[in-house]
């Protein structure tokens, strides 16, 4: 979600030329670590803060971290655009990414050996996928790790036998596989299914601050929640928060 944070920062600086915002990427873990170390004011994260990280914030700042949901992201399964696999259930997906199902023919498409693309383990998407899809089991050792969702999509779009996962914000060049629920209905990720929770791999994106929040940081958070900020959310392919959400509290 570094792109989103960057867009917000650009627009925010347009509106408030006296404030300068620097955005750097690296993954949710990177941002939260920076927050703990005091090298950033706001950390963006695509996962909830871990208990351990939270403890460290309390230890450093003497108070709980402050969490603001700012958008909704759906993690999508990507395959090559010529891969005809109709839909995958979560249990099937788990077996595939654990390396128990090795060949596409087991999933009904004759494409040969499955090539797995995963994210680097500092990514919030990695943690989310591991917890939600793999149910905390390990990825297959053969899963290749790439440094960003864009890289995953790029790799998948070049490889007929590939499957990867990543935030939906970047979808282009590869095909998104719908997820089959237990009753057999296939759900594609879109604004509606992500918000109402029928798409099983949807998750909120957060901004985290720690300690006594300074006024400038608060203005950035408010901006992210404002109508303008939420338009940028949509522009980047994420889903804005439902209107009745915490957006009402924003001052922006």
């Amino acid at each position: 979600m570094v792109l989103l944070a960057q867009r917000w920062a650009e627009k925010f600086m347009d509106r408030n030329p006296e404030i300068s915002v620097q955005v750097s990427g690296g993954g949710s873990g990177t941002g939260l670590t920076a927050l703990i170390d005091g090298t950033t004011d706001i950390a963006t994260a695509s996962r909830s803060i871990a208990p351990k990280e939270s403890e460290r914030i309390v230890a450093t700042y003497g108070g709980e971290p402050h969490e603001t949901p700012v958008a909704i992201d759906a993690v999508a399964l990507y395959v090559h655009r010529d891969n005809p696999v109709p839909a995958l259930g979560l249990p099937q997906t788990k077996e595939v990414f654990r390396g128990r199902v090795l060949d596409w023919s087991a999933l009904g498409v004759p494409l040969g050996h499955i090539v797995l693309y995963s994210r680097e383990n500092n990514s919030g998407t990695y943690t989310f996928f591991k917890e939600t899809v793999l149910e905390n089991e390990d990825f297959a050792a053969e899963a290749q790790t790439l440094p960003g969702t864009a890289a995953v999509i790029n790799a998948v779009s070049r490889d007929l036998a590939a499957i990867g996962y990543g935030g939906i914000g970047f979808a282009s060049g590869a095909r998104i596989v719908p997820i089959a629920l237990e009753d057999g209905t296939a759900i594609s990720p879109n604004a509606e299914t992500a918000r109402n929770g029928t798409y099983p791999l949807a998750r909120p994106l957060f901004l985290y601050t720690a300690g006594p929040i300074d006024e400038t940081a608060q203005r950035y958070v408010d901006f992210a929640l404002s109508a303008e900020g939420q338009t940028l959310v949509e522009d980047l392919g994420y889903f804005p928060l439902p209107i009745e959400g915490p957006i009402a509290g924003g001052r922006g």
Partner: protein
Amino acid sequence: MSLGQHRKAPAWHAVAEYLIGGLAITAIAAIVLIFGFVAREAIPLLWETQEEIRFVDLVWPRQWPGYEEPVYVWQPIGKIPKYNLVPLFVGTLKVTILSMLISAPLGLACAIYLAHYAGSRTREIVKPVIELLAGIPSVVLGFFGLVLVASVVHDTFGFIYRLNGLVAALVLSITVIPVVFTICEDALRSVPRALHEGAIALGARTHEVVFRVSLPAALPGIAAAMVLGLGRAIGETMVVLMASGNAAVVDLFDWSTSVRTVTATIAAELGEVPRGEPHWRVLFLLGAILFLITYGLNALAAWSVRRLSAHLGGRS
């Protein structure tokens, strides 16, 4: 009477001497301090985290919950973090060996060609061009590997994995060849002319001069070139991070699978780990081991040069 008096060096000479000596000591101190810092972060592993990491799990396969057999796993993030170092060193070893197999003969052959066969004009063009390779930023090479070399290898060999050990080794060779080449070429050219000319005077052909005279005489330098090239290959980070696929698999002699090297692991993971966590300490342990390996290689190079030159010097 003043003529015979020894002239005393001006006082600032002594100052300059101290200054230069101080600079030299700074360099040594920097190395010692860096190693000290890296080791200091890793050493608490010995007593601090016995419940979270058993030492034997770092090097020995273990049957974790959910696995059918004991395995080497590097998955430091998750409910049960698994820090087996073996897949990472296997990855480093695989890529390093293959890239040395590619670049050592190429670098040496280039050096021999330029030192003995090529005319001086060819040499003036080719040498700087090869050395220019060393100046390409490794991130550019990594991108080149990721996009182009990977596709060529994929189309040629049809491996299952597009990014694999072979791609990484090929691209890595581009960074190693200039190192091997430059030092080999210097070593070959510093063989005393008298030896060449003597051999030619005795009727030796060029290839006989090369194999019987130049190569044996330049052996210490060539050995040093190989060891320094090896050090470069082990230490290179960006190229392997981008072109190897970074899957921590243990297939020792299969270059068609993806590899995850020690350096790439440190680069990819260190930024996200909170200070003082077991994961942090293990990454520093990797760094310390890497440091010892490269230090050992450099020491080996120095030792072999000294030994070989003493040996050759005694014989001639």
